[in-house]
């Protein structure tokens, strides 16, 4: 089994562009979820000036990853995108024009840029990524599933490295639908993107953390069992016991599973951005494992309060959906690898 590391991170969020703003917002804990993402900050590239917001967010996050890592050749790089709803503002706009006006008045851009793989396609074009490019669709568990697919591509030597990006944009229809599906939940919908670069562990290559284990399960009749199996699967792959985990991270949809382990959630601060929320959790955990960022203090504070470890070693990030889709991933600090 090839050992993999997170070697770069990037984010676009209501806190602003960049992982540092994401980490600062998470550390401060003030709710920024409703903040608009500045168009000026994300629309930096002419090629995507007509694209949907989701594409701008994804491309901006990927750009930060690549800048962070300093890689320039992407011939053997894979790009896996996780998407929940996609460019719903464009597709709804196109549909609306069809229904209310003449067909010929609709903009073809609303059509072509609304396909679910548009964020990944545009990112591959802009950054000349020519390896496998996939877009997988689903809720918050899709972030880990995308990482798993990327890991398989590296393991089977179909790619030397892989960028995994999750992106989502706010949309009235999806906000309404999800609120209606769960009227008791205090949803604060959010948007943005999160991206990570994963590569085989190489002692000479800087890394934020290693990926120790992951798993995903779908059990429609029992979401809780699916989540338990995903966590057990990730622990088994990492060869760890639950007691070895220092911190757990999830979103506010998920009931904390561990009594002895502090479970952090950044949803009150960053809002709920579907699959992107899980990717933000992964990014924040990776940064905490690497140390030296504001959010690290939050993770460390949690550790001191609840656990015997004095420094962050293993962090589990998990996500579950009411339809029985669940996933978990364990990131380990560099000292543990």
């Amino acid at each position, binding site marked *: 089994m090839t050992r993999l590391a997170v070697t770069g991170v990037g984010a676009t969020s209501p806190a602003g562009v960049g992982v540092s703003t994401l980490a600062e917002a998470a550390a401060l804990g003030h709710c920024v979820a409703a903040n608009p993402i500045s168009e000026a900050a994300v629309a930096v590239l002419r090629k995507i000036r007509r694209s949907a917001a989701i594409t701008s967010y994804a491309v901006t996050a990927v750009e930060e990853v690549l800048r962070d890592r300093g890689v320039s050749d*992407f011939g053997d790089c894979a*790009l896996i995108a996780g998407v*929940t*709803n*996609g460019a719903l503002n464009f*597709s*709804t706009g*196109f*549909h*609306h024009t*069809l*229904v209310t006006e003449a*067909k*010929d008045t*609709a*903009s*073809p851009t609303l*059509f*072509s*840029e609304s*396909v*679910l*793989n*548009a964020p*990944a*396609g*545009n990112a*591959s*074009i802009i*950054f*000349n*990524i*020519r*390896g*496998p*490019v*996939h*877009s*997988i*669709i*689903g*809720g918050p568990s899709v972030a880990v*599933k995308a990482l798993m*697919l990327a890991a*398989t591509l590296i*393991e*089977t030597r*179909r790619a030397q490295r892989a960028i995994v990006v999750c992106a989502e944009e706010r949309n009235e*229809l999806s906000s*309404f*639908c999800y609120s*209606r*599906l769960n009227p008791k939940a205090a949803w604060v919908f959010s948007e943005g993107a999160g991206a990570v670069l994963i590569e085989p562990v190489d002692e000479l290559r800087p890394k934020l953390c290693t990926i120790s284990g992951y798993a995903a*399960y*779908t*059990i*429609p009749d029992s979401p809780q069992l699916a989540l338990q199996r995903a966590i057990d699967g990730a622990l088994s792959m990492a060869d760890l016991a639950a007691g070895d985990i220092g911190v757990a991270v999830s979103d506010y949809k998920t009931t904390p599973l561990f009594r002895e382990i502090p479970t952090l959630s950044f949803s009150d601060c960053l809002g709920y951005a579907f699959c992107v929320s899980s990717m933000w959790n992964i990014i924040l955990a990776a940064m905490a494992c690497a140390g030296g960022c504001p959010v690290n203090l939050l993770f460390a504070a949690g550790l001191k309060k609840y656990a015997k470890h004095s420094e962050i070693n293993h962090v589990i990030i998990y996500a579950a959906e009411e*339809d*029985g*889709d669940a996933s978990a991933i364990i990131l380990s600090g560099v000292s543990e690898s």
Partner: protein
Amino acid sequence: MTGVWVTAMGLVAPLRPFDTIDAFWGALTSGEDSIKLQAPPLLNEKKEWLTASIETGQALRPEDKFFYIAEAALKMAIGDSGLSAGKLQGADLIIGSILGNVLSRERQLIDGNIQHRTAEASLSYPVRYLGQRFAIGGRLSAISTACASGTDAVGIAARSIATGEAEVVIAGGIDVLSDFALAGFNLLQALTEDKVRPFDKKRTGLALGEGAAFLVLEAERHALARGAKCYGRVLGYASRADASHLTAPHREGRGLASAITAALSQSGLRQYDINYINAHGTATVYNDLMETKAIKLALGEAAYTTYVSSTKSMLGHAFGASGVIEALCALMAINTGVIPPTINYRYPDPQCDLNYVPNTAKATPVGAAMSLSAGFGGQNAAVIFGRPPQI
């Protein structure tokens, strides 16, 4: 790639409602054209469009067709597989689709009622619904890589078996005709008002279609242990990006050639070993030229002795479903020794100079067949099938 068998198939496609793959194959290899002028699914328009539509024979609302054909095709595949309920509990399901049940969303807008069938419009809903409906208990995944979605679903499924992650994966593709797609492709000037003539000098574009198809992929050991039949082995799969343009293919076929080369390398076959290619073959000027260049780039001189045909000339372009439908056609070519034709072919294009099996099926042994897909976003995918071991 070794040890991956295709042990069952299910399909609902245009032409006419068929109960069996053999009936579908008989019609296809006899060159039946399912493309005709039809009204759009939901919007009340005077204009008719050349489309390949599935006639279910049921009094269905248009927005119910997606799940109707999906269930029918999956039921056929599961029935063909002979998998027990216990085995299905451990199986994974992966579905490729571009638009999902897009007609449900259109209906919401037409009715002005966004509360209507909200969940069904989501693309991740079909895989969850089908998983529950057929008690498929493994991982459920939805992939959307534009018109390569179906081929990628098959390839990713095969890879997860080859790496030992799964023993049984059901891979499918589903998409239906919609006003959304008709208007979109029309605005992109990709639709023909003539016949669909892939690789013909006077080709003018594609006709949209619809369909649902599923393949049951199984680890060889697992299939042998339960005495399953084998339609063929998955020998290679690769996906590569053009990194060029969102809606237009790379003019020299860079990404597709790279995908073919990588899939071939994985299969361990040589260029001359591929007897048949089921082409993406949309009949747009740029796709067919690009695809011809890509095949020549990847296969060299062997490109000229390999049969290449486009079943979209008869079935239309079924979006994300087309990759699985065409994979099934490649497997049937191996099993029957008959290559389906490219119909409506009249005028050879000097730039498209391969053997496109014009108008009439070709009877010839097929040891290995490849299916190609390309799509928006610069997506390209190639999957290679080989003979089942008992043939």
